[in-house]
C-alpha cells in the first residue's frame, strides 16, 4: 500500500439481500465510510428538487430567457439540396440589409466525418453541401426577423449533385459517394483506428471480436438467426439548442443550453485559440439534451464569430425544424445476428454483422451490449458505418446499446422458446450478474410473470402479451471533476461546481450529499452550478454525473468541516483531534466541549472557509480508463417487464404496463431516480412504437421535421410504470453512487418486442412497430397485383 492511503470497511452488497462489509484501500483525504442509506438522514431520501418550484411556476431561467444589452439575433442559412457544390456565394446584399450587423460564412463545418486531405493537397476549394439543412452561413441582426430576411438575400449558385439517402442504396458500389476521400474521426479519448472505406461503407470494425465464432456456430447444437432494422430517432429536447455568445476584449462568455459547460469551454478555447481562463460558459435551467447538447456545433461557432464581428452579444436559437434536421439523431441500424447455443442454453457463439447510418457522421454502431451482457467464448462483431446524404447522428441516450439490445434480447427470447425454457430461466443460466439475478427475482414476483401464456395464446382480436428484457451499461466516471464546498461565517453553506442540471436534478443530489456530511438539511445548502467560474464538474452524459461528482462533493464537505473544526477548536480551549460533528453539534468525545454548527461558523476569523476536492479513482481502481473518463469495474444492470395488448385486426400496439428494476450503486434521491427511469421508459416506448425520421428519397428532405408528423409518445400512450431500485453497495467511492439515465432506456424496446411476440406469436424485427408493420407481420396486408 502506497503512502497516504489507508484501508477502511465499506458497506458492500445488496440491501436486504447480501449486505455486508468489505475492506477497501482509500486515499488519506477521503471521507470515512458512509453507512448504508437506512442509517442516513439526507442521502437515500427523496428531497424535493431545488428548482422544481421555479420550473413549474415558469420563473426558472432557461438560456432563451437570458438577455444582454445590445443583444443581436442570429439565424442560419441551410442547404436546400441534399448534395451540392457551392459555385459562388455573395453575402453583399445581405450585409447591406437594414438591421444586419454581421454575416459569417461557415467554411469548415464540424460535427461530422471530415475528409482527410492527401499529402500536399489543400482541402477542396469549394464547400460541398452534404444534406438538406447543412449550414452555410449565419446572419446577426437587430431582430430574428431581420436576420431571417437577410438570409434570403445571400446569393448562392449551387451545382446540385447526385445523392443517396437510403441505406441499402448507399451501400451499392455505384451509389453517389458522400465523401470522395477517406474520413477521419475521433472518439472520446483519442482517434479511432483507421478503418477501410469503400464507397459509402466505412468499416467493418471488428475490434470487439474474440474466439472463433464461425467454427463454433457451425458446431452449435442450436442456431438462432434474425435480421433487425431500427430507425432514426431524433432527440426532441423540449428546450431547443440555444446560446448567447458575448465576445469581449477581456474574454468570451457563452450562455448556452449544454450538457457539459466545462467541455464546451475547453472546445471553444481550442477552436478559438483562447486560454481556458478567458472563456466562460454558463447555463441555468435546461429542458433536456439526451446527448445532443454535448459538444460545440456549427451553431455555436457561428454565433461566437458573429459576436466577435459585430462587437455585440449574439443570440442563436434553433427552431423545431432545425432541431429535427440538424441537431443530431440516433442512427439507424441493420443487424444480422446468429447465435449458437448448447441444449442447456449455454451460449457458444454469437456473430453479428451490423451496419448503420449516422448520415454524414460516423458512430452508427450497436454498442457493447451483445459483447458484454452474457458470457460467450466466441464472439464476432463486424460493424460498418454507411454514409448517406442526411444530417449527422450523434450520441443519444445509451447510444449503440438501444438498437443493440432491441435485437439481441429478442434473439435470447427466441433461444429460450426454442429450448422450451422460460426467458427468466435461460437468463439464470447465461447471465452471471448477481445484481440482475436479484432484479429478475423482484420483477418476476411483482409483475406476476407466472401468468404469462404461450405465444399467441390469447383469445379474440385483442391479444395480451408479457415480455421482459435486460439492460447492460458501463458504469462511467469522469475523473476531471471537482467540487467546492464553502462554509460562511453565518453558518450558510455553498456547494459549487460547473456541473449543469439538464433536468436530472444533480443540484438537489449535491445538496443532499453536503447536508448529510454537515448535519444539515438539503434546504440549508445553496447550490451554485452551471458556470465554469466554479470548479470544473463532469458532463451530464454517459450516466456519469452523480458517480463522478458526489464523491468529491462529500470529500469537500468533509474537508471544509475539518477546517472549521481546526479553526474553532482553540476557541473551545481544545484541540481538533477529538472533535466531531454529531447531531448538528461539534462535540468532543468526552462530552466536555460542544458547539452548534452555526455558532461554530460564527467564530471563524474570515468570512468563509472552504475546500475543493476532485474525483479520485474508484477504491480498488477502475476497469479501464480513457483520458478524462473511466469505466468502473462493475457495469450497471436493470431488468424491465412489459405488458402489451395488440389489436390483431388494426395492428395497434398498446403498452399497458412496464415494471422496471434497476441498480445505480447507492441511490441518493429515490424520487429523482424514479423520474429518470420513467423518462427512459417513455422514450423507449416512443422509440419502439412511434418515432421515426422519414426522409423523402426523391428529394432528400425530411418530411416530418416537427413534433406533429414526427410521432412521439404523449400522455395517452403513457402506461402504468412501476420502478424498483436496488441499493447495491460496492464500496468503491465516498458515495458509492452510479448512474441511471441510460440503463433505464435500454431494455424497454426489447421488452415490448418480446411482449408483442408473446401476444401474437409473430416476431417483429422492425422499429417502430406501427400498425403497418404489425399488420404486415401478421400477413394481413392486401395482396398487391
Amino acid at each position, binding site marked *: 500500500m502506497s503512502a497516504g492511503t489507508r484501508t477502511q470497511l465499506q458497506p458492500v452488497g445488496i440491501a436486504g439481500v447480501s449486505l455486508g462489509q468489505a475492506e477497501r484501500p482509500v486515499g488519506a483525504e477521503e471521507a470515512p465510510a458512509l453507512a448504508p442509506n437506512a442509517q442516513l438522514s439526507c442521502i437515500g431520501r427523496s428531497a424535493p428538487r431545488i428548482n422544481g418550484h421555479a420550473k413549474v411556476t415558469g420563473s426558472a431561467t432557461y438560456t432563451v430567457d437570458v438577455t444582454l444589452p445590445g443583444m443581436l439575433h442570429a439565424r442560419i442559412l441551410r442547404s*436546400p439540396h441534399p448534395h451540392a457544390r457551392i459555385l459562388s456565394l455573395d453575402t453583399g446584399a445581405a450585409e447591406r440589409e437594414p438591421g444586419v450587423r454581421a454575416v459569417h460564412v461557415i467554411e469548415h463545418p464540424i460535427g461530422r466525418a471530415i475528409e482527410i486531405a492527401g499529402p500536399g493537397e489543400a482541402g477542396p476549394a469549394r464547400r460541398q453541401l452534404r444534406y438538406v439543412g447543412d449550414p452555410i452561413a449565419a446572419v446577426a441582426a437587430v431582430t430574428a426577423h431581420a436576420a431571417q430576411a437577410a438570409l434570403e438575400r445571400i446569393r448562392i449558385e449551387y451545382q446540385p449533385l447526385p445523392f443517396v439517402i437510403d441505406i441499402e442504396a448507399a451501400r451499392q458500389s455505384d451509389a453517389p459517394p458522400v465523401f470522395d476521400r477517406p474520413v477521419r474521426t475521433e472518439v472520446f479519448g483519442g482517434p479511432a483506428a483507421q478503418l477501410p472505406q469503400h464507397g459509402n461503407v466505412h468499416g467493418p470494425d471488428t475490434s470487439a471480436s474474440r474466439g472463433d465464432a464461425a467454427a463454433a456456430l457451425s458446431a452449435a447444437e442450436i442456431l438462432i438467426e434474425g435480421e433487425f432494422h431500427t430507425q432514426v430517432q431524433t432527440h426532441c429536447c423540449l428546450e431547443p439548442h440555444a446560446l448567447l455568445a458575448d465576445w469581449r476584449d477581456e474574454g468570451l462568455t457563452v450562455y448556452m443550453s449544454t450538457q457539459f459547460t466545462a467541455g464546451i469551454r475547453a472546445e471553444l478555447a481550442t477552436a478559438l485559440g483562447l486560454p481556458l481562463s478567458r472563456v466562460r460558459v454558463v447555463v441555468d435551467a435546461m429542458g433536456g439534451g439526451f446527448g445532443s447538447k454535448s459538444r460545440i456545433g456549427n451553431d455555436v461557432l457561428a454565433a461566437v464569430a458573429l459576436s466577435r464581428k459585430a462587437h455585440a452579444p449574439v443570440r442563436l436559437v434553433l427552431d423545431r425544424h432545425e432541431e429535427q434536421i440538424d441537431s443530431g439523431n440516433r442512427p439507424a441500424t441493420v443487424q444480422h445476428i446468429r447465435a449458437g447455443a448448447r441444449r442447456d442454453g449455454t451460449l457458444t457463439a454469437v456473430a453479428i454483422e451490423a451496419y448503420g447510418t449516422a448520415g454524414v457522421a460516423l458512430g452508427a454502431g450497436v454498442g457493447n451490449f451483445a459483447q458484454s451482457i452474457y458470457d460467450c467464448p466466441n464472439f464476432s462483431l463486424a460493424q460498418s458505418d454507411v454514409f448517406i446524404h442526411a444530417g449527422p447522428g450523434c450520441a443519444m441516450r445509451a447510444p449503440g446499446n438501444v438498437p443493440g439490445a432491441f435485437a439481441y434480447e429478442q434473439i435470447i427470447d427466441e433461444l429460450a422458446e426454442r429450448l422450451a425454457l422460460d426467458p427468466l430461466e435461460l437468463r439464470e443460466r447465461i447471465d452471471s450478474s448477481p445484481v440482475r439475478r436479484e432484479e429478475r427475482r423482484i420483477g418476476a414476483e411483482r409483475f406476476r410473470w407466472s401468468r404469462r401464456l404461450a405465444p399467441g395464446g390469447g383469445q379474440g382480436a385483442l391479444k395480451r402479451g408479457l415480455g421482459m428484457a435486460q439492460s447492460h451499461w458501463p458504469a462511467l466516471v469522469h475523473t476531471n471533476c471537482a467540487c467546492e464546498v464553502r462554509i460562511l461565517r453565518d453558518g450558510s453553506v455553498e456547494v459549487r461546481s460547473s456541473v449543469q442540471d439538464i433536468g436530472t436534478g444533480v443540484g438537489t443530489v449535491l445538496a443532499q450529499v453536503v447536508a448529510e456530511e454537515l448535519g444539515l438539511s438539503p434546504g440549508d445548502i445553496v447550490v451554485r452550478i452551471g458556470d465554469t467560474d466554479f470548479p470544473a464538474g463532469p458532463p451530464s452524459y454517459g450516466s456519469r454525473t452523480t458517480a463522478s461528482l458526489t464523491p468529491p462533493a462529500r470529500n469537500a464537505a468533509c474537508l471544509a468541516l475539518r477546517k472549521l473544526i481546526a479553526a474553532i477548536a482553540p476557541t473551545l480551549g481544545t484541540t481538533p483531534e477529538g472533535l466531531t460533528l454529531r447531531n448538528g453539534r461539534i462535540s468532543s468525545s468526552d462530552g466536555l466541549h460542544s458547539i452548534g454548527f452555526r455558532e461554530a461558523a460564527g467564530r471563524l476569523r474570515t468570512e468563509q472557509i472552504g475546500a475543493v476536492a476532485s474525483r479520485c479513482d474508484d477504491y480498488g481502481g477502475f476497469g479501464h480508463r480513457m483520458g478524462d473518463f473511466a469505466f468502473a469495474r462493475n457495469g450497471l444492470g436493470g431488468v424491465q417487464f412489459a405488458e402489451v395488448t395488440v389489436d390483431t*385486426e388494426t395492428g395497434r400496439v398498446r403498452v399497458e404496463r412496464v415494471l422496471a428494476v434497476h441498480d445505480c450503486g447507492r441511490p441518493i434521491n429515490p424520487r429523482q431516480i424514479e423520474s429518470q427511469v420513467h423518462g427512459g421508459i417513455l422514450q423507449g416506448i416512443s422509440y419502439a*412504437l412511434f418515432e421515426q425520421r422519414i426522409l423523402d428519397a426523391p428529394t432528400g428532405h425530411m*418530411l416530418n421535421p416537427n413534433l406533429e*408528423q414526427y410521432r412521439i*409518445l404523449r400522455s395517452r400512450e403513457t402506461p402504468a410504470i412501476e420502478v424498483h431500485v436496488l441499493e447495491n453497495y460496492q464500496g468503491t467511492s465516498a458515495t458509492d453512487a452510479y448512474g441511471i439515465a441510460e440503463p433505464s432506456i435500454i431494455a424497454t424496446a426489447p421488452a415490448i418486442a418480446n411482449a408483442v411476440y408473446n401476444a401474437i406469436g409473430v416476431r417483429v424485427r422492425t422499429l417502430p412497430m406501427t400498425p*403497418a408493420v404489425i399488420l404486415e407481420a401478421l400477413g394481413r*396486408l392486401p395482396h398487391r397485383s
Partner: protein
Amino acid sequence: MDAFEWMSPQDIEQAARAATTTVAAAMVRDSGEPAAGDALLKAGGIDLLDLMKEGLLKPRRLIHLRNIAGLDRIEGAEGGLRIGPNVTLSQLASHAEVRMRFRALAQAAGASASPQIRHLATLGGNLLQRPRCWYLRSRAHHCTRKGGDRCFAFGGENQYHAIFDHKGCAIVHPSTCATALIAFGARLEITGPRGARRAPSVEEFLLLPEADLHRENTLEPGEIVTAIVLPAPAQATRSLHIKQCETESFDWPLADVAVVLDLESGVCRKAAVVLGAAAPAPHRARAAEAALTGKRIEEPVIRVAARAALQGAAPLAKNGYKLPIFETLLRRALLAATEG
C-alpha cells in the same frame, strides 16, 4: 413569419368585403415564394398560423371572425340543429343535444387534436383547414395542389395518403368532423361578398382532385361559412364515429369512419357510411350503405358491408395497411352503433 395587420370586423359583410382571396388560392403559385399582400379570413387560426409559420402563406392582413356576434351558437332548426361556424370543437363535443342526437359528430369533434386545440379550434375552421399532406406543407415541394406539376406522394412517402379518388393528388381530407357531417347529410350556409347566399350540402361543398386540384372545397374569395345545419335525424337513428391514429393523443387518423343508421326494430331503413382519411374528400361508401339497407344489422351483414366499403380502393405503395384497418373500424362501428 412576417408581420401582418389584424382586423376584427363586427359583421359578416365587413369581413367578406375585406377578404381578398381564400387560403387555398393564396397558396397556389407558379413557383418560389407565396404571394404577399393577401387579406385572409381567420377563425380559430390553428391551421392558418401553422401555414404562416411554415412560410406557405404570407398574408398582409388577417380578418378575425371570432368577434362577429351570433356565429358561436348551437340552436334548434326545423327539428335539427344549426351550428355557428365559430362554435369550438370542445363546445360541440360537450353539447348535450349534439351528444344525444348526433353522437358521431360529438365523438369526431371530441377526439380531434388536443384539449388545448379543441378549446380554440372552430367547426368552420376544422372544415376548411388545408390537408396535412407533408408535401403540401413543405416549402421545398412544389406540388400540384400548390400549382406545381406533380404529386410527390406517387413514388414518395405515401403511407398516410389516400386509397380512393387520388387522381392527380393523393391528399386525404383532414377533417374528421366532415366525415360525421356528411354521414348526417349536413348542409352549409354560405354568405358571399355581396350578400349572396347559397346552401350546399357538405358533400357537394367538398371537392375531389378531379374537380379541382388546387382546393378541397367550393369556397370562393369573400365567401364565409355562416352556419352548419344538421337536418332532423329519424327517430331511431344510431350513429357512431371511430378512428385510429398511430398515437391516441394529438394525432391525425390513419382511418376514421362515421356511420348513421336509421333502425326500425333492428332493420336498417337507411344507412350512411363515410370513410375519413381515405380520400381527398370524405368517402361515401355507397356499396356498404346498399349492403345494409333493408337488412337486419347482424354480424354477417356487417361483415359484408365492411368489405363492400372498400370496393374500388386503390392503395398506393405504402398505404395498403389502411384497408384492414378501415374494414375493422367499420365492422366495429356498425356493431357498436347497433348495440348502443
